[in-house]
């Protein structure tokens, strides 16, 4: 993170010196057995923080450890937010965050796992959560809330209800709430506060009048009490106050301000622009030298300063008080406000707090100053993946300021590339290019702070252009720009060269030139590793492995996954981000080899790492491979449901979509004889058997050929078969020319099925033999087994005797009926064994990585096959039949 970590945000705020004990609220918080979330939701000034600190102090939380985080606007960047959450948790346990590694941009899932492994109980408080409006941060928090381990209580204090499924949580008893109505001072509490704490001698009627006017709003009662201290005519004050309908805080702050000596009054007004106060900062802003002393006096007089650290060096004003003070400041000295912010900016800049300095420069309306501060910080912001912060700052500047600064403009492009605003990126790049003159000097009217960054701009622009062109499908354009970029990048710029090499690898892969794609990816991986961008190494490995698979070299794909999986974060020894994707990739290779059990183990390992351990495409990749597991188990509905989920969760990135989910679905349907649906898909996509082959559509065309063969099998229509064979001819020629042996093997298998359907057994055997010659040594099994129904006899003759394929072909399928009842599929056996536990349906679904509906389907099938109609009977009957495998386990 670029800005310093502020320890004051992690302190449990000190309880105020004078306090009304409120055991009724502490007790309610303590009674929250089993509730994952505690929500304290009320407007400012209702004592939310105080209630929490009293509860934590009372020792009745049931948890020894408390992690506290006071949020502010700067936390709307996931990188910043999660850094602080981890820092807060580390104040409690060294073990936390050790496993998260350096990729703080997606920690929630790993955090859940780490918290679950904690020995003791823990309370995590997020105070001032209402400042969070970043949807990325909110999504992460929601994930955390929904998977929170039992020993952790999350407490959110906020002025507005968080975007979480509160109603559902309420219904399930997972939520404990304190709201404004609970937090208001009761008559009794008001009397205690005014009398015992503030030492005011009031009648019961006085207290009732104040309580009625303030409606138990604590901040207002506090202000009223301060106004009454040392006042002779208390009754008169109360009568005036009660009879006035002005905004209560405004009225009272004015009362309090009027009673302050002028130096204190002007101090309060001038320092009201500060979010956090400390002596030297106040001095810098006021031009005086009594900052520390005044703060101390305010603290003792209970004048709305809240200490932020135990040493009472940092304070903030109570929010309401600060707002009203600023209104007075604006009203009385409108011209002074900008200057106060400017001084605060200068102080924070000297202290190295860039975020505060930028915030004050922006508040001062001093946009050039803010831009001057942001520009040199861009490289560090990018390296720490704080693109959200970059975007927020740059969007706070007037557009013309950003546009006049080429380095800032390209920084904005970098931020936009992450959030995927394509049109804006193009427009900005064009805009910047106009500012770059031939002689490498800034064009007139432009502003450059970071000269070094300015000199690198042409190269940076060429890199971003390459990326944009590739995303928009202009492969030749992308390759041309990549060449320019390589010419412009300095030899030692490993990061830039690695990025361009990767883009070139993608471009060539997209056109089907696998050799060139592989070459560039090898170079990219080396450059990125030299640049220390370890997490990008995962992406390079995935691309390399995908290309290797397309080449029909699954062993090399496996080696690429394996190599990347061995690289760990040097600081923590934990796997890289994207490790989950690597496991999914390995599962894919293992499935191709017919080893579903090993594939499942890798999918489980991927799930263990969780979505946060994956790249953006992880959820989709995971669903695709899981669908294949289900298909291999004979669970077609489960596989279709997973493919539907894969389609929902697909996010486009730079990787070419060479195996679209819709095509995978069509292939599955065609295999099930549901050719009508499969051909419907092809029609919808505008695919025709007369199409000329190209790599991006190769897989889809192959699936179309399968659907046509299935149509012939079902209807006997010769035309479908002829169309399929002619399409396969063209696809085969193209795959051969492109060295895409992976595609070629599947094409030949489908060809064999088609030839057999035509009655040409010789041609079928020839095609299959060639497929086996290519595929068997590389370990291909599943592609043949998938066609076992029609090709079993041929396979037995062409597979190498004694080999893996031959053995697999002979093995009976899991769902062949046998014995007194229909045999259960492997998946149904899994479910049956889990029915013999205490797990409920949703738990079983989670355990098997399937939906609850799929579990229901399996359960229905199990009941039908076993001739029972409830869970207990199914387990009993399963036990009788020896299906539970108990002997082996116990």
């Amino acid at each position, binding site marked *: 993170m670029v800005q310093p970590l502020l320890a004051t945000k992690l302190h449990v705020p000190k309880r105020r010196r004078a306090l009304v004990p409120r055991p009724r609220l502490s007790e309610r918080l303590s009674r929250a057995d089993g509730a994952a979330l505690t929500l304290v939701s009320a*407007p*400012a*000034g209702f004592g939310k923080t105080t209630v929490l600190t009293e509860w934590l102090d009372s020792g009745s939380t049931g948890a020894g450890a408390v992690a506290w985080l006071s949020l502010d606007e700067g936390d709307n960047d996931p990188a910043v937010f999660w850094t602080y959450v981890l820092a807060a948790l580390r104040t409690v346990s060294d073990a936390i965050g050790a496993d998260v590694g350096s990729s703080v941009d997606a920690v929630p899932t790993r955090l859940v796992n780490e918290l679950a492994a904690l020995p003791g109980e823990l309370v995590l408080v997020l105070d001032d959560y209402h400042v969070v409006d970043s949807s990325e941060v909110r999504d992460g928090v929601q994930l955390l809330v929904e998977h929170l381990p039992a020993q952790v209580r999350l407490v959110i204090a906020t*002025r*507005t209800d968080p975007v979480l499924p509160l109603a559902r949580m309420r219904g399930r008893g997972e939520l404990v709430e304190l709201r404004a109505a609970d937090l208001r001072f009761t008559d009794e509490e008001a009397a205690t506060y005014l009398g015992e704490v503030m030492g005011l001698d009031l009648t019961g009627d006085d207290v009732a009048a104040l309580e009625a006017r303030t409606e138990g*709003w604590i*901040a207002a009662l506090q202000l009223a009490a301060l106004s009454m201290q040392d006042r002779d005519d208390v009754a008169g004050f109360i009568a005036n106050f009660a009879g006035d*309908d*002005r*905004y*209560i*805080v*405004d009225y009272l702050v004015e009362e309090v301000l009027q009673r302050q000596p002028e130096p204190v009054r002007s101090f309060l007004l001038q320092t009201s622009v500060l979010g956090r106060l400390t002596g030297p900062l106040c001095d810098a802003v006021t031009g005086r030298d009594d900052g520390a002393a005044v703060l101390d006096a305010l603290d003792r007089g209970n004048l709305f300063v809240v200490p932020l650290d135990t040493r009472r060096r940092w304070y903030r004003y109570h*929010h*309401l008080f600060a*707002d*009203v003070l*600023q*209104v*007075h400041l*604006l*009203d009385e000295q*409108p011209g002074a406000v900008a200057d106060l912010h400017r001084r605060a900016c200068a102080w924070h800049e000297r202290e190295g707090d860039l975020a505060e300095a930028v915030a004050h420069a922006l508040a001062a309306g001093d946009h050039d100053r803010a831009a001057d501060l942001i520009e040199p910080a861009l490289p560090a912001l990018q390296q720490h993946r704080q693109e959200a912060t970059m975007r927020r700052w740059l969007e706070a500047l007037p557009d013309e300021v950003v546009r006049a600064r080429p380095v800032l403009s390209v920084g904005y492009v970098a931020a936009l590339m992450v959030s995927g605003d394509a049109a804006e990126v193009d427009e900005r790049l064009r805009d910047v290019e106009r500012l770059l003159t031939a002689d490498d000097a800034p064009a007139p009217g432009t502003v450059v702070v970071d000269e070094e960054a300015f000199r690198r701009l042409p190269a940076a622009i060429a890199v971003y252009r390459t990326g944009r062109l590739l995303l928009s499908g202009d492969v030749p354009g992308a390759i041309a720009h990549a060449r320019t970029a390589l010419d412009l990048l300095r030899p030692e710029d490993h990061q830039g060269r690695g990025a361009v090499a990767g883009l070139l690898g993608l471009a060539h892969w997209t056109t089907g030139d696998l050799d060139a794609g592989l070459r560039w990816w090898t170079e990219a991986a080396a450059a990125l590793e030299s640049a220390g961008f370890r997490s990008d190494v995962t992406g390079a490995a995935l691309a390399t492995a995908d290309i290797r698979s397309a080449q029909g070299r699954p062993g090399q794909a496996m080696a690429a996954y394996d190599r990347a999986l061995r690289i760990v974060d040097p600081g923590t020894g934990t796997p890289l981000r994207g490790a989950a994707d690597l496991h999914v990739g390995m599962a894919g290779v293992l499935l191709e080899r017919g080893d579903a059990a090993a594939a499942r183990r890798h999918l489980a390992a991927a799930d263990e790492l969780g979505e946060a351990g994956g790249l953006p495409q992880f959820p989709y990749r995971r669903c695709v491979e899981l669908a294949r597991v289900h298909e291999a188990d004979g669970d077609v509905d489960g596989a279709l449901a997973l493919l539907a989920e894969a389609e929902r969760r697909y996010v486009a990135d730079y990787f070419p979509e060479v195996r679209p989910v819709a095509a995978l679905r069509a292939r599955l349907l065609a295999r099930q004889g549901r050719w009508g649906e499969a051909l419907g898909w092809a029609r919808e996509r505008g695919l025709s058997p007369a199409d000329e082959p190209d790599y991006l559509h190769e897989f889809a065309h192959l699936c179309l050929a399968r659907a046509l063969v299935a149509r012939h099998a079902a209807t006997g229509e010769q035309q479908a078969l002829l169309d399929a064979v002619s399409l396969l001819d063209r696809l085969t020629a193209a795959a051969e020319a492109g060295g895409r042996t992976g595609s070629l093997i599947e094409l030949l298998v489908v060809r064999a099925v088609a030839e057999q359907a035509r009655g040409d057994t010789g041609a079928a055997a020839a095609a299959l033999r060639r497929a086996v010659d290519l595929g068997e040594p590389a370990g291909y099994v599943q592609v043949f087994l998938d066609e076992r129904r029609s090709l079993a006899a041929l396979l037995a003759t062409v597979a190498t005797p004694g080999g893996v394929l031959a053995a697999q072909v002979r093995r009976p399928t899991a769902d062949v009926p046998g014995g007194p009842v229909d045999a259960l599929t492997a998946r149904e056996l899994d479910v049956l064994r889990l029915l013999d536990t205490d797990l409920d349906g949703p738990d079983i679904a989670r355990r098997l990585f399937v939906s609850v509906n799929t579990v229901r389907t399996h359960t229905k099938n199990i009941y039908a096959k076993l001739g029972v109609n409830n869970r207990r009977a199914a387990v009993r009957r399963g036990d009788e039949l020896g299906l539970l495998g108990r002997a082996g386990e116990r």
Partner: protein
Amino acid sequence: MTTYPCCYEVRLDGRLDERWAGWFDGMTVTTDGDGTTTLRGPLVDQAALHGLLRRVHDLGLALVSVTRLDPGH
């Protein structure tokens, strides 16, 4: 969704004096006879409206109503 500037009228419970106009980005502040206050003025978009409402909420002021005024008002 409204993306063009619009005039809004935001009514609050309680009486605010004119001094608050600056705090609410130049909206006019009018106190009504019934103990409510109305902020009135143009806001560039929905984000600005939500920012204004957030300021109202931050002060602990109770919101009574929000009305978009037809052009011509």
